[in-house]
C-alpha cells in the first residue's frame, strides 16, 4: 500500500551537492521544499569528527561513504554483443551515499571548463574541418556557453572559498595563473595553497620545458573563510585525507561545510533521509511526484509541483528509465536520447623515483594541493595531424601518503614479500607521481540502458553500462602520456615508470568518479534529454541536475561545472519558470 503525502512545491531527489544548491536557492524564494535522500543524515561534528575521520580501513576499504551495491548496482560490458555482468564491488568509480553524496569524499579539484569545450563539435570542425570528428563520435555542442555559465562558476567559487590564482581576469592574462582559462569576472576568493616539494619540483621541470605551471584550484581551504551564506570553513591542515574521506576539520568545501548550516535553519525546508526513490510519476506530460520506499519497506507517494533529480548521474539516468520518461537510446539506430553519450575520464601518469637524498613527505598532502599545466587541454594546442581532438591537464597533486593505499614502487618490484617491503621502505618518501587527466569524447557505442537479466533489491532491472575507451581517447591519452613522461624525466629522479591509459577499460581498479552523460543537454529534443536549463524536454516540471547533462567529458574534474549548470538552471527558473511554469526553451 502506498501512503499519499501532502503536496510540496519543490521536491528534490538526492541530497548531495546539487540537491543542497537547489534547496538553498528555492527555499530562498520562499518555496516549500522537501529533499529525499536514500542515505543517512551526516555532518562534520557528529559523524566526521577530526579524531576519527582519518581511518583508511573504515572509509577506503570498508566503503563507509560509498553506495551499497547489495541494494542496487549496474551491469557492465565493454561493447554491445557482450554479456554484461553486475558490478558487485566498487572499483573504477565510487559514488557516495548519505547527506552530501559523493561531494563528501571528493578531492576538491575545482575547475572551469574551457570556452571551446562547450562548442566541442562546431569549434573543432571550424578549426580542423569536418573530418576532425569521426563518424561514430557523437559529441555535440552543449547549447550553453562559457559566458553564460561564468557568473555561476563565480558563485560556486565564492560559496566554496576556492583557493587559486586567476590566469585570465576579464580577458587580461595574469602572471602565475592558468593563461588558457576562460575570462574570470573575479580573482579566486582565497590565495593558492602552500606548496610542498613535489609540486614545486614538477613546476620547475615544466617551466624548464617552456610550460606555464600554476597552482591547481582547490576546495581545500588555504585560509579561514566565511562564505556569502555566513558559513565558515577552517584552514586545511594538509592531513592528506580528502578523496574517499570526509574532512574532519571543516576545511574542504562540501554541501555540509558550505550550505547546510544555513539551509537547515530554514523553516520552509524539510529533509527526509532513508527515502529511496523508485520512480518519478507522471500524468499528462507533467511529473506529479515520486514514489519512494523507506528503510522499513513502507512505500510513499510524495506529490510535488516541481521535481529535481539530483542523484549521482547513473541514478538520474536510471530513474528516467525506470519511470518510462523518454526513449532509451539504441546505438544501432541512433534513436532515443536517454542513456546516450555516457563518458568517463582517460587517466594516465608516471612515477618519478628519487634517491634517499630527496624527501617528498607525502603525508603532508591535500586533495587539491598541486601544480598543473594546461598546455595540452581542450583545444589549447594545435591538433593538426595528431589524429585526435581534445586533451587534458597534466598535474602533480600531492594528495596523500596514506599508509595502506599509498606505496609507490618501481614496476619490476615483486608484488609481495621481502622485496616488496624493501621497495616500499626505499620509495615511500622518495617518489613523485605525475598525472594526465584526459577528456573522453562520446561515442556511439558508449551508453546506458536496462539489463535484460539482472534486477536490483527493489525488483527493477539493473541499469547496464556499455563502455570502452575509443580511438580518440587512446590517441589523445597516449599523446598526453608522452608529455607527462618528458616532464617526469626532467624532474631529476633516478628512474621514471610510465603508466599509459589501460585498455580495454577495466571497471575494477579505481580511476576516477567522473562519470558523465546519459541525460545530456542540447539545443533540441532530437539530440538531448534536457534543454540548456537542464529542464526535461518531455516534462517541463522535471529538472535534471549533475554531470549527466554533459554531452562529453572534457579534460577537467566536473564538480564546478555541475554546480555552475545547477545555478544557471535555477537562475532561469527564478527569472521565468516560477512566474510562468512551462518549457524554458521552445522545442
Amino acid at each position, binding site marked *: 500500500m502506498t501512503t499519499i503525502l501532502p503536496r510540496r512545491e519543490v521536491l528534490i531527489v538526492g541530497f548531495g551537492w546539487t540537491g543542497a544548491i537547489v534547496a538553498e536557492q528555492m527555499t530562498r524564494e520562499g518555496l516549500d521544499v522537501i529533499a529525499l535522500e536514500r542515505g543517512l543524515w551526516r*555532518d562534520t*561534528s557528529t559523524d566526521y*569528527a577530526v579524531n576519527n575521520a582519518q581511518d583508511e580501513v573504515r572509509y577506503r576499504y570498508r566503503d563507509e561513504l560509498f553506495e551499497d551495491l547489495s541494494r542496487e548496482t549496474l551491469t557492465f560490458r565493454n561493447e554491445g554483443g557482450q554479456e554484461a555482468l553486475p558490478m558487485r564491488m566498487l572499483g573504477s568509480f565510487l559514488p557516495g551515499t548519505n547527506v552530501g553524496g559523493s561531494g563528501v569524499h571528493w578531492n576538491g579539484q575545482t575547475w572551469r571548463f574551457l570556452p571551446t569545450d562547450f562548442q566541442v563539435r562546431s569549434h573543432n570542425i571550424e578549426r580542423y574541418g569536418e573530418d576532425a570528428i569521426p563518424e561514430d563520435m557523437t559529441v555535440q555542442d552543449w547549447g550553453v556557453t562559457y559566458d553564460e555559465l561564468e557568473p555561476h562558476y563565480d558563485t560556486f567559487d565564492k560559496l566554496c572559498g576556492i583557493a587559486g590564482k586567476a590566469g585570465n581576469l576579464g580577458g587580461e592574462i595574469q602572471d602565475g595563473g592558468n593563461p588558457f582559462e576562460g575570462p574570470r569576472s573575479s580573482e579566486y576568493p582565497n590565495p593558492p595553497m602552500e606548496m610542498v616539494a613535489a609540486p614545486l619540483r614538477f613546476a620547475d621541470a615544466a617551466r624548464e620545458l617552456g610550460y606555464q605551471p600554476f597552482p591547481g584550484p582547490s576546495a581545500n581551504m588555504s585560509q579561514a573563510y566565511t562564505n556569502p551564506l*555566513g*558559513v*565558515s*570553513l577552517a584552514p586545511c591542515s594538509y592531513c592528506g585525507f580528502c578523496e574517499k574521506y570526509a574532512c574532519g576539520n571543516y576545511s574542504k568545501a562540501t554541501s555540509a561545510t558550505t550550505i547546510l*548550516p544555513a539551509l537547515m*535553519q530554514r523553516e520552509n525546508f524539510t529533509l527526509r533521509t532513508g527515502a529511496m526513490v523508485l520512480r518519478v510519476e507522471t500524468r499528462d506530460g507533467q511529473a506529479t511526484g515520486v514514489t519512494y520506499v523507506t528503510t522499513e519497506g513502507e512505500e510513499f507517494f510524495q506529490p510535488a509541483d516541481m521535481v529535481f533529480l539530483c542523484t549521482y548521474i547513473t541514478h538520474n539516468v536510471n530513474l528516467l528509465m525506470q519511470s518510462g520518461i523518454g526513449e532509451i537510446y539504441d546505438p544501432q539506430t541512433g534513436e532515443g536520447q536517454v542513456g546516450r553519450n555516457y563518458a568517463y575520464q582517460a587517466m594516465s601518469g608516471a612515477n618519478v623515483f628519487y634517491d634517499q637524498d630527496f624527501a617528498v613527505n607525502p603525508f603532508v598532502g591535500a586533495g587539491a594541493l598541486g601544480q598543473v599545466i594546461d598546455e595540452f587541454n581542450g583545444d589549447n594546442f594545435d591538433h593538426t595531424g595528431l589524429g585526435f581532438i581534445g586533451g587534458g591537464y597534466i598535474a602533480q597533486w600531492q594528495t596523500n601518503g596514506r599508509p595502506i593505499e599509498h606505496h609507490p614502487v618501481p614496476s619490476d618490484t615483486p608484488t609481495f614479500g621481502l622485496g616488496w617491503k624493501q621497495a616500499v621502505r626505499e620509495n615511500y618518501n622518495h617518489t613523485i607521481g605525475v598525472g594526465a587527466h584526459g577528456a573522453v569524447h562520446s561515442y556511439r557505442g558508449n551508453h546506458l540502458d536496462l539489463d535484460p537479466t539482472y534486477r536490483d533489491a527493489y525488483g527493477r532491472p539493473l541499469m547496464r553500462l556499455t563502455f570502452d575507451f575509443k580511438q580518440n581517447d587512446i590517441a589523445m591519452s597516449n599523446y598526453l602520456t608522452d608529455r607527462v613522461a618528458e616532464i617526469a624525466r626532467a624532474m631529476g629522479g633516478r628512474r621514471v615508470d610510465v603508466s599509459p591509459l589501460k585498455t580495454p577499460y577495466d571497471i575494477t581498479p579505481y580511476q576516477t568518479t567522473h562519470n558523465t552523460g546519459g541525460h545530456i543537454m542540447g539545443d533540441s529534443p532530437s539530440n538531448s534529454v534536457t534543454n540548456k536549463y537542464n529542464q526535461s524536454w518531455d516534462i517541463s516540471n522535471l529538472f535534471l541536475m549533475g554531470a549527466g547533462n554533459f554531452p562529453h567529458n572534457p579534460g577537467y574534474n566536473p564538480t564546478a561545472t555541475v554546480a555552475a549548470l545547477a545555478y544557471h538552471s535555477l537562475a532561469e527558473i527564478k527569472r521565468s519558470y516560477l512566474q510562468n511554469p512551462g518549457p524554458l526553451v521552445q522545442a
Partner: protein
Amino acid sequence: MKHLLTPMILAAIPLAMPALAQDQNTWSSVQRGLYLTRMGDCEACHTVEGGEWMAGGFGLPTPFGVIYSANLTPDEETGIGAWSADDFYRAMNEGISHDESRLYPAFPYTNFTVVTREDSDAIFAYLQTIEPVRNRIPEPEIPFPLDIRTSMRGWNLLFFDERDFEPAPEKSELWNRGKYIVEGLAHCSACHSPRNLLGAQQGGAASYTGGHAEGWYAPSLRDTGPHEGIGEWSDDDLAAFLKTGRNGRTAAIGPMAEVVQKSTQYLTDEDIAAIVAYIRDLPFDEPEIGDPEPLAESDGIMIAGGEIYATQCAACHGIEGEGVERMFGALAGSSLAQATDPTSLVHIILKGARSAVTDAYPTPHAMPAFDWKLTDEEVAQVATFVRNAFGNAAPAVNPGEVSEIRDEE
C-alpha cells in the same frame, strides 16, 4: 554609552517610569512578550528537544532530584490556560502556583521576583497566544520531606526575598536596565553564582563569582583575576559573545551555547549594551590571587601532554595554541583553559562541545569527544599542558579530577 538609549529602551526601564512604558511602547505586548520570553530563556527548560514549543516536561536534574518543567501552553487542564495574569505574576513574583502550591526554586522565581508587572503581563499575553498542547507533567522525583511543597515555605523564609527591582539612582539608565535584565529575566546568577548546600544562590559579594551547572563550570563574571572568566575581555568581546556566540577569543559552548542560541542572540543591541554595562561594573573586592607560575617545559607531565597535544589537538587549535578565530578556540590566553576550576576544560576534552549556532555564525563547529580515546591520565596530561603552554599558567589537573568528571552523567 548613552547614545545607545532609544526611546524603546527608556520605555522598558521598569518602575522608574511605568507610564512611559505603556505610552512609548511601539511593540504590541504580545511581540514584547515573545522578546521577554526569549530574554528569560524560558525555552531552555520549558521546551523539550524535538517537543512542542513551551509544552514543558523537561526533567531538570537538581541535587535534590528531578523536577519537571511546567507546560506553559494555554491548555486548560495541563498548561496555564486557566491561569489569569494575576496568577502568572504571583508565580513569577512569589513562586506560588495557580493552585496555591509552592514552586521549587529550579524555576528561578528568586530572580524573576524583580520582573515588573508589565513585563510579566506581556510574557503571559504571549504565552496565551501559542498553540495549546495537552501534556501532563510528571510529579517531581524528590525525596521526603522536600517532596512536600510546603517545605519550600521554610526554604523561602531562609533564602527568598520577594522584592521589586530597585534602581540605583546614581547609576546610568543603561546600567539600571542591565541590572534589571541580569538579576531578573536573564537570571545569570542561576549558573554564575555559587550555591550553598541547600541549593540557594549566594548573594552579595559572592554572587557572580562562578558556579557549577550541568557538569560545567560557569566562570566568574567579576574581574576575579587576569586568567579567570571574562576579566581580560573588552566590552565588545562580551557584547559579541552574547549577540553572536563568538568573539575573537572563544565561542559559547555547553550550557552557555544554549543560552546564546535561545536567548541572548535575540536581544537588541541596546539590551546587550545594558547587560555589558552592568556586568562590567560588578565590583570585586577580594584580594587578587597572584599569577600562578607555569609548570616547567621539562616537567614529565608537560612533555607527555605536549605529545598528546601535537597528535590530537594541534590540527585545529594550532601548534602555538593560536586556534582559528571564531572557529576553533585559541588556547593561548584562554580563560577557560586557565580557570582555577578545570571542570569545563576537562569536560570539553572528555565529552566534546558544540559552539552556539546563531544567525551570525550558522556553522556548528564542534570539539569531538575524546573519552573513548584518552585515559584519565592522558586527559590530565594534555589538560595540564594546555594550562601551562603558550604563555598560560594554571595548576595541574590530576587524573582523579578527570575520573570524577568522566563518571558524571
